[in-house]
């Protein structure tokens, strides 16, 4: 509809008086070019923007560089003979207001560009004697060829306000002193990359913990993703075997365990594996062990327990996901392999696995990302423990659970934000590398 000719530069250069006037009075061009209601709406937006800037926006922007200077203080009131507390600046609110203001400005710039282009577009249409859609027709189009605008506006607004703005806000915290350390919870300041240096420095206490947690996070994600994937696939294949009887029954048994809400099963597992929990009681009653096994008390035990329980949680999921895809594998492939005398193991590694990897690489990446960010399993099972004295991170903490502890429990917001950013960076790298090396990216043609 609007081609490359209708850009803002052309609009300013070749536009008529009204189109150019829209640069100052937004919507003027639209109103002059027979789209009065739309023009008025745009103008209303501009007026609302100016009102907002005067009332709040300018102040918010001007406070952003300093993030506030007034500390909360007390002043002696002679008349009343008491100390009165004066409200100081609240840097966290200043930062939020500043970030929101930046987004409002970006939105109005976007609207400005759109209305300039549209105004110029309408002008050219009128010059060519073409029909300009009325407001009624515009509305009708919103339910026809422009349906995507109607459908996607609200979801996009939701994502913008409750995902993108919070993320930008949180990322900006990483460059401040917003932390309980040194009492910077009310008033804090920008301090550049200090926290990043602190985290990457292997000799410091925080840096040492970061590298430990990072290493475990990656080990965990690899084990959790690939063990679940292979074992889930094998389970699906065993159930789908021609000779297996009661397929529906077996599937039901496994699906039952994922049908129960995950946080419930995880909390139950946590209790069952306590030193005096059901499993230890059972083992001791059977005479298999004399002392309770340290499922959560020993670092290595805790790590292995978590991976094993995650298998319990994850295998049925994988089984469900791959069942349909497994049945899509062309039967000729198997027959040919059998004729050549390949055994079951060889068929699995030479045909099934490559085919599945080819088809499910995106899901594998998604599940790897999910495991790196897997909060529930760690937090509800081990709570990140065992934790050594003086550390904020436990031995089974992932970056996400550590992020949670640092922000919600310890209120080290800047460190938490840095860890969040580092997680994002690592995930981006991993995703890009695996995706680029995957056969579905290299060779876009079908399998084989």
């Amino acid at each position, binding site marked *: 509809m609007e081609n490359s000719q209708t850009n803002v530069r052309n609009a300013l250069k070749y536009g008529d008086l009204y189109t150019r006037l829209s640069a100052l009075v937004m919507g003027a061009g639209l109103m002059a070019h027979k789209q009065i209601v739309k023009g008025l709406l745009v103008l209303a937006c501009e007026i609302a923007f100016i009102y907002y800037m005067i009332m709040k926006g300018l102040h918010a922007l001007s406070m952003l560089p300093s993030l506030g200077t007034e500390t909360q203080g007390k002043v002696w009131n002679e008349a009343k003979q008491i100390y009165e507390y004066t409200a100081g600046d609240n840097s966290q609110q200043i930062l939020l207001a500043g970030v929101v203001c930046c987004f409002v400005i970006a939105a109005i710039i976007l609207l400005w560009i759109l209305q300039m282009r549209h105004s110029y577009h309408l002008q050219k249409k009128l010059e060519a004697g073409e029909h300009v859609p009325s407001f009624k027709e515009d509305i009708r189009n919103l*339910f026809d060829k422009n349906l995507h605008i109607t459908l996607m506006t609200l979801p996009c607004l939701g994502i913008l306000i409750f995902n993108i703005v919070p993320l930008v806000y949180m990322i900006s915290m990483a460059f401040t002193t917003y932390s309980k350390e040194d009492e910077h919870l009310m008033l804090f300041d920008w301090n550049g990359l200090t926290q990043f240096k602190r985290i990457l420095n292997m000799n410091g206490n925080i840096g040492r913990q970061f590298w430990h947690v990072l290493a475990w996070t990656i080990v965990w994600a690899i084990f959790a993703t690939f063990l679940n994937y292979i074992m889930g696939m094998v389970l699906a294949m065993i159930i789908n075997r021609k000779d297996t*009887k009661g397929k529906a029954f077996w599937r039901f048994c496994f699906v039952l365990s994922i049908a129960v809400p995950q946080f419930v099963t995880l*909390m*139950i597992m946590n209790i069952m594996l306590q030193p005096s929990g059901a499993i230890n009681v059972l083992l001791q009653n059977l005479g298999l062990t004399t002392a309770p096994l340290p499922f959560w008390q020993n670092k290595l035990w805790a790590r292995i327990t978590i991976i094993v329980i995650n298998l319990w949680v994850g295998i049925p999921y994988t089984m469900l996901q791959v069942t*349909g895809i497994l049945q899509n594998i062309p039967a000729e492939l198997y027959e040919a392999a059998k004729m050549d005398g390949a055994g079951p193991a060889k068929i699995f590694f030479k045909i099934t696995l490559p085919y599945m990897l080819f088809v499910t690489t995106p899901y594998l990446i998604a599940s790897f*990302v999910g495991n790196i960010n897997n909060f529930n399993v760690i937090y509800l099972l081990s709570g990140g423990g065992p934790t050594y004295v003086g550390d904020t991170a436990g031995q089974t903490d992932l970056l996400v659970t550590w992020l949670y502890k640092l922000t919600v429990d310890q209120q080290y917001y800047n460190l*938490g934000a840095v860890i969040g950013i580092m997680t994002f960076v690592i995930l981006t790298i991993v995703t890009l590398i695996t995706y680029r090396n995957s056969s579905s990216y290299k060779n876009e043609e079908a399998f084989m």
Partner: protein
Amino acid sequence: MTTMAKNKLSPRRRLVNFLVHLLLAVLAIIWVLPIFWIVLTSFRAEPGAYTNTFLPQGYTLNNYIKLFTDRNVLNFPKMFTNTLIIAVFCCIFSTFFILSVAYSLSRMRFAFRKPYMNIAMILGLFPGFMAMIAQYFILKAMGLTEGSAIRIGLIIVYSACTGLGFQISKGFFDTIPRSIDEAAIIDGATQWQVFTRITMPLAKPIVIYTVMTSFIAPWVDFVFAKVICRANADQFTVAIGLWNMLQKEYIYQWYTCFAAGAVVISIPIAVLFIYMQRFYVEGMSGAVKG
């Protein structure tokens, strides 16, 4: 399988079959045992979290009765209504958001389509928590973190970003032949009519799947709820309530009630899940084929 075919099986194959079924039986026991155990615990007469026996010594219904009548310490009925209200609203908004986005991305062609999918992928790489903590501050600035406004806050948090979770529905929409839409449009239908009268009825499985997953989400999430409710006990959802029952100060009194609560919550969710798992499988394999 007929007896004729059975007789043909070689002894080796019979052995393999026997071993496979044995393995499946062992695995099934491992997978079902914890669930079985929690059901037994919910009827256990002895109080406390830890007992000296694996199986309960006596059985009672008191745990369920206490769960639904004791409103003084941990008000489970109240939590149940809170969660139900949140779940109903969340279900309406999320379903609308997810299906709208999925339909637009699958059927419409517009300039923002590819960027939107890329942005969704990038946003998915951030830990969900990072946004969560800032979301709390934003809700606080809007005054939605005190009193009963917390419910509105939770509804917003659960449904606002669901537009990012369009993949499974989009995969399903992609498998519906476009020629059906085109025929309808030639007959004079608008896109809105195609969306509501043609695609929605054809995509019934995925609509049901979306409705159910959106309804279940508030029942099973406890992290967001915990961060946003903080200490407002009268706004707790079921998940926080159950989590609290396992904390040090309550566990002895409430452990068997926790088991009862877990069973009460799990039964409807499990029924819904087992009912919709086939839609999930269809969505997954459909998305891959497409």
